[in-house]
């Protein structure tokens, strides 16, 4: 009984002194808050709060001692979320081979290219073996088709074009595709020709009614003043106003051409926005992730 009680006191003593022993002379890195498990827990929390930079700092600490592809993948995703596309691309590329995320990282690589507006490059590499995915989602191909549509490139025959999409995606895509073929462009040359015939008519054609009427009046009034001065033999004034008439007549033809170009750029911009909205809704054809505590 005596030995037992002695044994108990020793254990008790050690036990009670434990916190003090531990808390004395410790540097911050040995604090239990900085064990790899806790660093990762905290980092996951920061990541979920979209506090990416701080999350990266923690993840990097974690990766010094542990090997975890989920963490690497999340770092890349964070860069993508922050709009730092070049870094996102590099990080995704690092996971292409020998990782748990070979397919996912390629999918996200293509999504990032799309977000960064590198459409031509995206189309170019979509058939490259290095970038190809090996699953049934076909994300790179789908995004490449979408990019081709935006670039107004001839699409592959309709069968293979729609076959890789699922039913819902197919409906959205074919709607956009047919819409794209009916975009209400204005022809710049037509606009310029119209304004050559009747000053301002080209601007009416591009929908800038006020500008068209102003141009018509402007050229008309200047021309009339020039004509009037020629009749009255005020030759200097006559030539001055003739010059101005020519300048504004020409300027309006020029401006009509430009107005049609701007009109078309706006039509394109609206269409691209619509496509991006569709992609956003479909999450760029990528299934949502659930990392849990991996």
């Amino acid at each position, binding site marked *: 009984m005596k030995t037992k009680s002695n044994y108990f006191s020793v254990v008790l003593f050690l036990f009670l002194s434990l916190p003090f022993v531990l808390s004395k002379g410790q540097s911050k890195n040995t604090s239990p808050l900085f064990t790899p498990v806790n660093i990762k827990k905290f980092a996951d929390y920061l990541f979920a709060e*979209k506090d990416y930079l701080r999350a990266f700092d923690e993840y990097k600490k974690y990766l010094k001692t542990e090997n975890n592809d989920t963490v690497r993948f999340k770092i890349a995703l964070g860069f993508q979320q922050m709009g730092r596309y070049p870094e996102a691309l590099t990080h995704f590329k690092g996971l292409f081979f020998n990782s748990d995320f070979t397919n996912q990282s390629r999918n996200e690589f293509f999504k990032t290219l799309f977000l960064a507006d590198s459409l031509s490059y995206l189309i170019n590499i979509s058939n490259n073996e290095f970038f190809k995915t090996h699953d049934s989602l076909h994300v790179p191909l789908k995004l490449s088709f979408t990019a081709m549509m935006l670039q107004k490139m001839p699409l592959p025959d309709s069968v293979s074009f729609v076959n890789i999409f699922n039913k819902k995606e197919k409906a959205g895509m074919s709607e956009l595709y047919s819409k794209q073929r009916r975009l209400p462009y204005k022809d710049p040359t037509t606009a310029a020709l119209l304004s050559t015939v009747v000053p301002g008519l080209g601007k009416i054609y591009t929908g800038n009614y006020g500008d068209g009427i102003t*141009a018509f009046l402007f050229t008309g009034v200047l021309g009339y003043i020039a004509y009037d001065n020629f009749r009255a033999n005020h030759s200097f004034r006559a030539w001055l106003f003739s010059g101005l008439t020519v300048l*504004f007549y020409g300027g309006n033809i020029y401006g009509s051409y430009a107005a049609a170009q701007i009109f078309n750029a706006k039509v394109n911009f609206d269409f691209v926005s619509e496509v991006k909205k569709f992609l956003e809704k479909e999450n760029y054809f990528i299934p949502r992730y659930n990392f849990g505590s991996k």
Partner: protein
Amino acid sequence: MKSLALILLLFPALILAQADWTRWKAVPPSYKIKIGQNTETEKSDGSFTSDVLIGLRSVYAFFISDLDGDNCPFYPSCSHFFVRAVQATNLVQGALMFADRFTRDTNIFKSSTQYPTRLHGRLYDPVFLYELDESKINIKKLLNPSNEN
């Protein structure tokens, strides 16, 4: 607590953590009223025509446009537009761009679809839209002219 409800109402949708997407340092507090610097002035691009135009423009500004009120609703104003247009293209094309701009300026009905953005309180109507170069017509930049001085 009532005040708390008030505060939470005032700041419902503060974008979380975006402020920390770049590493920042302490800044000394600044009490002064910040005056929006309207730096419309063009830099010389080294060519003779551009230098002459910049000179003529400042003479015009000194004697006339600084004294006859705020007449131009556009940013950049017509005279700056002319200088920039010539710098971006050439004298003839710049003159045509200016004539078109002047006509549009005279039109009193200016729609917000045509000029969707305001800069320094004026309608943003940049030169890059009118150079007849489709690759330069950047609607994104037209809508977010944050980098434009």
